[in-house]
């Protein structure tokens, strides 16, 4: 019964979306207030119905209702509850429903709370949002219905890949999805504003929190994904330039560019066309990511050809939305009034440069991701790995980071560079200090990591420069947000560069009692013992840090066996373990065991010393935190509260 209700609610929500689109479009052609009055309530109702449908799907997973195909394929009655819940979105159909739920809820939020826009622009925005929803509703209902029943329910489900049974990973996809959908809201705003020609500060201010919010979630999602790859995939890399990772990075880059250009439009009413264009690009990139991942194109052009339905559907949707938006843009671009002017040497100028470099990096990553697919279609098999991305994006990113901290030191419109000149010596001195330190103690280091550490010092000092001589207690939250986010970039960059320059690793086949030396550390392998978890058994290796003394911590890398349940293949996973020390991570893996002729069992053990590696994710979290502060600083609610407090204070003194 639950499944049928959920299915019916989805159809109802889709019908509401159709109604919104129709009413909105008719109103925009020729004003019809009675139709326009339907748009807001219908958008809210659509969001609520989709949310209930999603909650019902979750209930099916919680109850382990195996008569529903999706549950039977992706869940198991013995799975821990948290993974049953996460199973709701850990598959294609559920994740598309989640996407629609977030899309519907954001439409509802706009309908309820957005007051800055002109009424017709708001209606146009909600209409665009409804048009987006209809496409995804069609996709869900016609090609991937999550509520499909099985004629004969199996006794139990097929389970979920053990590698994916990780709390961090359970919340990774929804985080990214919120980010993607936020960009689609920005896209709707851009389309709405293009339709009614209201492109200016109001439009930019209405769009900004969505861009910022989505970018915060993308930042957190990417950071969490990188951390997951680091400890779960077992060999301690934190970024692989894998296409799956790239398609989350590309919208992030577009979002970063958009959030800076939307600030220019909001504050200075300049860069109007560019902001609108970027909103279209950012959404296109998030859809392209979904398309590449969901169509099977990543695995191979061949697997796409085997099951082309979903891929073709998404491709057509993408063509309609992006093509439609670009056509609208082309029609309206000429009529867009020119924004306010600015000199090259100005904050706008610096932000334009930063946008340009971000876009270039985006193009480079996009090219690297799509090139193998195109080459394969042409009959050549090519793989593009980290060397390409490191060599091309590295230098551009370093220039970008240095420009990043100069912008805030310039005034809007026109600047003579006096403040920048005043702060530059300190930034350069920091970089030189790092260089001197590395020459004296660093040993031989590659050029890119060396430059990376120098630029990190430059950026760290530069990012703090806007606080110079300010009253810190009166500094607005938005400035703090910017400073913390930019400082986060420096922290992450330092981590990346130091880890790649100074990593030490040792791989041995160790018998109990052996010691392993890596970098400044010596660990002793004490032996293994068996342990058991809820749905796995494992052996735990015990590695004790014996030098330097006083660390008193034990590394327990684990090799786990998940027995195959109900026909699923048994899977082994290796859980790495690490100790976080001020200077970095001491990281250990365990591999296979082997018993030699003398009866001594030795285990493959890899120990790595990764200097500053945890700075990478700390930096990512700082960037997200900075975004959050910037958003709070601009939130209307906080503003209202502050005004009310001020009014009260005045009353008291009166």
């Amino acid at each position, binding site marked *: 019964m639950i499944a049928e209700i959920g299915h019916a609610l989805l159809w109802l929500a889709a019908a509401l979306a159709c109604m919104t689109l129709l009413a909105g479009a008719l109103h925009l052609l020729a004003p019809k207030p009675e139709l326009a009055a339907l748009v807001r309530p219908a958008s809210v109702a659509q969001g609520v119905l989709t949310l209930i449908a999603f909650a019902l799907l979750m209930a099916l997973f919680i109850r382990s209702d195996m008569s529903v195909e999706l549950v039977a394929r992706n869940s198991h009655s013995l799975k821990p509850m948290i993974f049953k819940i996460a199973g709701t979105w850990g598959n294609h159909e559920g994740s598309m429903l989640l996407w629609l739920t977030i899309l519907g809820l954001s439409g509802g939020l706009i309908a309820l709370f957005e007051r800055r826009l002109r009424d017709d622009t708001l209606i146009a925005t909600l209409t665009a949002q409804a048009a987006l929803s209809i496409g995804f509703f069609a996709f869900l209902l016609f090609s991937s219905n999550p509520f499909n029943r099985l004629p004969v329910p199996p006794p139990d489900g097929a389970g979920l*890949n053990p*590698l994916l049974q990780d709390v961090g990973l359970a919340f990774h996809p929804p985080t990214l999805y919120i980010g993607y959908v936020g960009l689609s809201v920005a896209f709707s705003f851009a389309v709405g504003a293009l339709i009614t020609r209201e492109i200016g500060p109001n439009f930019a201010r209405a769009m900004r929190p969505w861009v910022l919010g989505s970018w915060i979630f993308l930042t957190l999602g990417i950071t969490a994904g990188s951390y997951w790859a680091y400890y779960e995939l077992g060999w301690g890399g934190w970024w692989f330039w894998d296409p799956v990772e790239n398609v989350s990075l590309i919208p992030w880059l577009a979002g970063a560019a958009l959030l800076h250009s939307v600030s220019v439009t909001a504050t200075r009413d300049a860069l109007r066309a560019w902001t609108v264009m970027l909103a279209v690009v950012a959404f296109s990139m998030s859809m392209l990511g979904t398309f590449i991942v969901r169509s099977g194109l990543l*695995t*191979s052009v061949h697997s796409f050809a085997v099951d082309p339905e979903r891929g073709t559907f998404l491709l057509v949707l993408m063509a309609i939305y992006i093509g439609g938006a670009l056509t609208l843009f082309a029609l309206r671009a000429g009529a867009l009034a020119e924004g306010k002017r600015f*000199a090259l040497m100005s904050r706008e100028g610096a932000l334009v440069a930063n946008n340009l470099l971000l876009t270039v990096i985006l193009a480079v990553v996009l090219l690297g991701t799509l090139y193998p697919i195109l080459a394969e279609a042409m009959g050549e098999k090519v793989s593009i790995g980290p060397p390409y991305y490191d060599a091309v994006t590295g230098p551009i990113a370093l220039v970008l980071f240095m420009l990043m901290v100069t912008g805030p030191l310039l005034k809007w419109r026109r600047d003579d560079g006096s403040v920048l000149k005043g702060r530059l010596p300190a930034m350069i001195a920091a970089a030189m200090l790092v260089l001197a330190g590395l020459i004296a103690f660093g040993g031989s280091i590659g050029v890119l990591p060396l430059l990376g550490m120098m630029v990190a010092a430059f950026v760290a000092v530069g990012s703090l420069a806007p606080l110079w001589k300010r009253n810190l207690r009166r500094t607005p939250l938005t400035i703090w947000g910017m400073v913390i986010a930019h400082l986060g970039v420096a922290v992450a960059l330092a981590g990346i560069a130091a880890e790649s320059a100074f990593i030490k690793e040792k791989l*041995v086949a160790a018998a109990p009692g052996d010691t392993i030396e890596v970098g400044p550390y010596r660990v002793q392998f004490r032996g293994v013992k068996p342990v058991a978890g809820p749905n796995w058994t494992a052996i735990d290796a015990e590695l004790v840090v014996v030098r330097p003394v006083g660390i008193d911590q034990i590394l327990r890398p684990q090799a786990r066996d998940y027995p195959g349940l109900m026909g699923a293949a048994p899977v082994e996973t290796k859980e790495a373990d690490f100790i976080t020390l001020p200077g970095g991570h001491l990281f250990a893996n365990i591999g*296979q065991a082997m018993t030699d002729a003398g009866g001594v069992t030795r285990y493959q053990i890899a120990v790595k010393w990764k200097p500053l590696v945890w700075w990478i994710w700390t930096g990512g979290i700082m960037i997200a935190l900075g975004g959050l502060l910037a958003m709070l600083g601009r939130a209307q609610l906080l503003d209202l509260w502050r005004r009310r407090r001020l009014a009260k204070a005045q009353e008291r003194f009166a």
Partner: protein
Amino acid sequence: MKAKHQRLILASLAAVAVAGAGLLAAGALSDEAAYFRTPDEVRAGQATVGEAMRLGGMVQKGSIERLPDGVTIRFVATDGKASMPVVFTGIVPDLFKEESGMVADGKLRADGVFEAERILAKHDERYMPPQMGDIPKDAGSTIADTPA
């Protein structure tokens, strides 16, 4: 400065940046794009000894052996048509097992053995390594059953 001039300068700066990045990317693509080969293509002479490349194939049934040093493994990669020996020093990824797909980065040695620096496994056991669409999924077991 007139608006026109300013736009011209902005546009030319943008053009320079894009062209520079394009050159950088094109250079790196021609240097760094590693060719993907299957054992059959290696046998047909499409790989040069010592050149960085990526080998894809299925791990042949019963072929994984550990060398006495305890940390090196040797196995046979096959695509159903040809097979070649691979050596790898390190801990293999979780999803690396017999009769399943793998992709190895490394180079071909003069003695015909592929020396892997890195073996890739993916997030999902249903995931086949990229560009392996042509290799039959049961290649690993069929070869073992019918010794050539």
